[in-house]
């Protein structure tokens, strides 16, 4: 509407100027100078579908980095994309990423469009998914306007989190006292064994951690154990920390960095006080989860993949919290868009975006089509 008004005004002003300056026009004709025609703006249709853009195959996936401002795909390697601030949204097979560059940290907000694609229990309603297409869902898309923009703090960004990290202690912002979060249980999977542990107590020295007592329950799947053993205490002293504190849960003791350890705590020296940092990391080949309710008596090794174990550092993609698709609704191993409308806030503008297809015309998967339009500029 605004673009149409602008175009109309341009034409009107040009016509008015032409009429007022008729004599000069004649002069121009006499001198053989032909005036330039008014610039004609390319008409942008709201809801236009872009794509399909291929993200490669399962065995050879590739990322598509898309710049919303110029509506173009940027030819970037994954390494280049890390330091590039121009792209806004990226696609790699089923994963959708947002730029986290300091100069263009893109946030997303999911509007409530098409929540009726799910029942009250959150189950996908196949009939609705299968009968939806880009045309039927255009109206919902067009209905989202600048009036629907939320506050800035409502947008989610892609982030990285440590699975344990600093989640084992509490910090009192009033008293500035650090204490063990003894109700936060973590389960570590490493070396065909599972270990549930918590920080039972800790002491501090300056801004470092001086000692920490872990409550450890071990379960060796190799030995056929199906439940955690009773908790034992493991006291760690960080006051002479050198290269870090490394713990092997199989041995229930501190080991050297070269040994087969499961978790480690980095050293921290602050104002000549030697201690440990308030961080716990797991080994590269290990995985862990937070058992916040202390609900697991043991881990069923056959079903480990269903518990949600994560590696040490996990990228939390904003799009993962509200998946844009449903899989295998009709037995064909296909992905069906929910046609949700996402708001994307870049460093320059806010856009709305709706993914319309994961396929090209031949049905090749990994080919994204989507529509987007600018709602406001900053």
């Amino acid at each position, binding site marked *: 509407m605004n673009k149409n008004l602008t175009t109309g005004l341009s034409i009107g002003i040009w016509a008015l100027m032409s009429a007022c300056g008729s004599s000069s026009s004649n002069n121009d004709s006499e001198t053989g100078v032909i005036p330039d025609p008014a610039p004609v703006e390319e008409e942008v249709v709201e809801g236009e579908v872009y794509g399909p853009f291929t993200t490669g*195959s*399962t065995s050879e*996936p590739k990322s598509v980095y898309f710049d919303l401002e110029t509506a173009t795909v940027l030819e970037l390697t994954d390494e280049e994309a890390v330091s590039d601030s121009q792209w806004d949204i990226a696609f790699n097979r089923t994963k959708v990423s947002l730029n986290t560059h300091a100069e263009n940290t893109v946030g997303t907000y999911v509007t409530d469009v098409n929540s009726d694609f799910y029942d009250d229990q959150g189950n996908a309603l196949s009939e609705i998914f299968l009968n939806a297409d880009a045309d039927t869902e255009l109206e919902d898309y067009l209905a989202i306007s600048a009036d629907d923009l939320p506050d800035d703090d409502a947008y989610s960004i892609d982030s990285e989190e440590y699975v344990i990290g600093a989640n084992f202690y509490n910090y009192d912002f009033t008293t500035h006292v650090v204490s063990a979060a003894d109700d936060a249980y973590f389960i570590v999977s490493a070396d065909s064994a599972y270990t549930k542990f918590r920080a039972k107590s800790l002491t501090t020295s300056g801004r470092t951690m001086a000692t920490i007592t872990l409550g450890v329950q071990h379960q060796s799947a190799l030995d056929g154990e199906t439940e955690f053993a009773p908790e034992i205490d493991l006291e760690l002293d960080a006051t002479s920390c050198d290269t870090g504190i490394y713990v092997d849960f199989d041995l229930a003791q501190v080991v050297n960095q070269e040994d087969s350890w499961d978790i480690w705590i980095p050293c921290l020296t602050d104002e000549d006080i030697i201690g440990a940092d308030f961080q716990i990391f797991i080994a590269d080949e290990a995985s862990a989860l937070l058992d916040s309710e202390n609900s697991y008596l043991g881990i069923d090794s056959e079903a*480990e*993949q269903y518990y949600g*174990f994560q590696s040490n550092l996990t990228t939390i993609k904003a799009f993962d919290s509200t998946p844009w698709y449903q899989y295998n609704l009709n*037995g064909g191993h296909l992905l069906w868009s929910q046609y949700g409308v996402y708001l994307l806030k870049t460093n320059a503008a806010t856009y709305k975006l709706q993914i319309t297809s994961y396929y090209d015309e031949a049905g090749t*998967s990994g080919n994204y089509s989507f529509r987007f339009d600018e709602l406001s500029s900053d």
Partner: protein
Amino acid sequence: MKLTAVVLCLFGLCMVNQARSTAMEQIVVTGTRSSIDQSDSPVSIDVISAAQLQKLSHGTLAGALNYIPGVVAKRNAKDGYTVQMQGFDENHVLILMDSQPLISPTGSAVDLDQIGVVDIERIEVLRGAASVLYGSSAMGGVINIITRKESKNHLKLKYQSSSYTQNNIDSSDIGHQIQLDASQNILGWRGNISLQKIEDPGFDYDPNTIAQSAPSTDKHFVNLGLSKQFDDAFGLSLKARYFSDDKQKQRYEIPGQAGEISYLSEVEQWQYDLALNQGEIWRVQGRYINHLETSGDSNSLRDADITLMEIDSQYLWNIEDLELVSGFVLHTDELFQIKTATEQGTSGTVEIDDKARDSVEAYTQLSLQIDEHEVLAGIRAQRDSEFGWHSAARVNALFSFSETQQQQWKLRMGVGQSYRVPTLKERFYVFDHSNLGYMVLGNEQLEPETAVSANLELTFVKQSGSSNRDFSLSVNTHYSKAEGFIETVTDVEASASTGLLISRYSNVEEAVLKGVDLSANLAWGKVDYQLSYSYLHATDHKGAHLSDRPTHQIKANLDWQLPFDIHGLIYLVYENGSYPTAQQLGIEQDDWSSLNLSLSQNFNQNWHWVAGVDNVFDNHQNTDAVAAGLLDVRPLSSRRVFAGISYQFY
């Protein structure tokens, strides 16, 4: 109730029809690897003759074996046809052609819809384990397709058309089948040629949906044969077989796009056989088969290049009442499979990288005749390039008790081992769906699946001689305990390290399969009746019922010689009591039946016609229920009306 009434009606007819002569005794080879009368075979063998095949089939073996008692015919996910026997699924029933194996495009199962019937002399069906004589996969039974060896000079042309009636995709759709079959003796050499083309338009239960129920198919078969019998009973045979098959059916709309995804299959197969023999004393057979296949959904096609090579040699000693048959087999399987590239400039994904397995196998079987009785004992040893040594042994016995020449009791019993070697796919497959969170991987450490089986069969035969009334009754009980069945299971360590659900083929499943087959045959004048009932109890090691197998099966066949040399054939199949898989959510229907009718007539020496209806009541699967995860044992089938005519030039 309706079906019961039909069966009773059919049997009622026998009381009013006149007697006719019994069928001729059949020669069989599958149980002993030497020619023997069917009734004298120490291993129970059923036979389908070429004439019966022509009545039962529509150009291929698909569905035709459903005629045999105890055989469960299945349509698989690739719209091919396989069989189960004695509770063993299609991967554990061995399909042979002239006693040598064929290509298995899916798992270890041969697609019976890829075997043309034109030059088939007979089919021998052995129920029970037979790995001693035939090696891998002969666990539930063996189906040995015997091609024509001797023939008179002839030239025959046949045309048959068919319609799926109300399930036609287009109301004017007609299926076509053309056969040309010729044999000629030239300068002492016997030349055979048979050509067959089958066009099938497919069918669809619901024209309002994109998904098509059965594909359109276009098949071509070319068989060439050249053989010569030299003076000292030395024989030479050369055969070349070509087969092609194109299938297509629409499956899904492409999400978010205007197009559709179709299932496609393009197959080309070449087979070359060379056989040398001196009577039945010795025989050397060589076989080479190459199978090229592109199949899958149109957005996810796979190319497979499968090769089978085998040399099978055999020597037969006869010393008074002793017969010893020994053989030596060299066998090679090769497989290359790639998921084709979906984007220009990319190379596709190799899923099985040109893998091969070789085996050297030796077998020997001793037969001792004691009066009317016979004892068989055999052993087979196999050295495989992948898993090393494996062996199997078996003992069979036949006891004959003749009250009179016309009235005989026969007791057949056998106990022994059988096995199936892991396929190249099970060993080397890499199915990568990591973008969806899972992978399926082969396992090079797999061992052969094994079973110990026992069969006991009692047969009573009463022949009335001049009164042309023959009756036979057989009771066959079977028991098998199988171990190391290969299934995909979660690889815990690999899943944990990759963050994906990694499934890997493993020897894990155990099963106990037991049951009984009852079969009664009555030839009364111009009518032959056959009634059979099979019961199966198949469980895994936890006692849970194995899925996809009928507990009860009834078959009733009636072959009636009418006036004017018209033959009528009616056969009924009824199955009941299948159990759902762990993934299925419930049961839509666990029983089904099918009634088939056909009439044929030799109008004169040259002209012959046939007409009939398959699946008269159009019992078929509810595809919506199956898509919703329910068990529906009714086959993907349709009523089919057909009519054909053939002309015998000479």
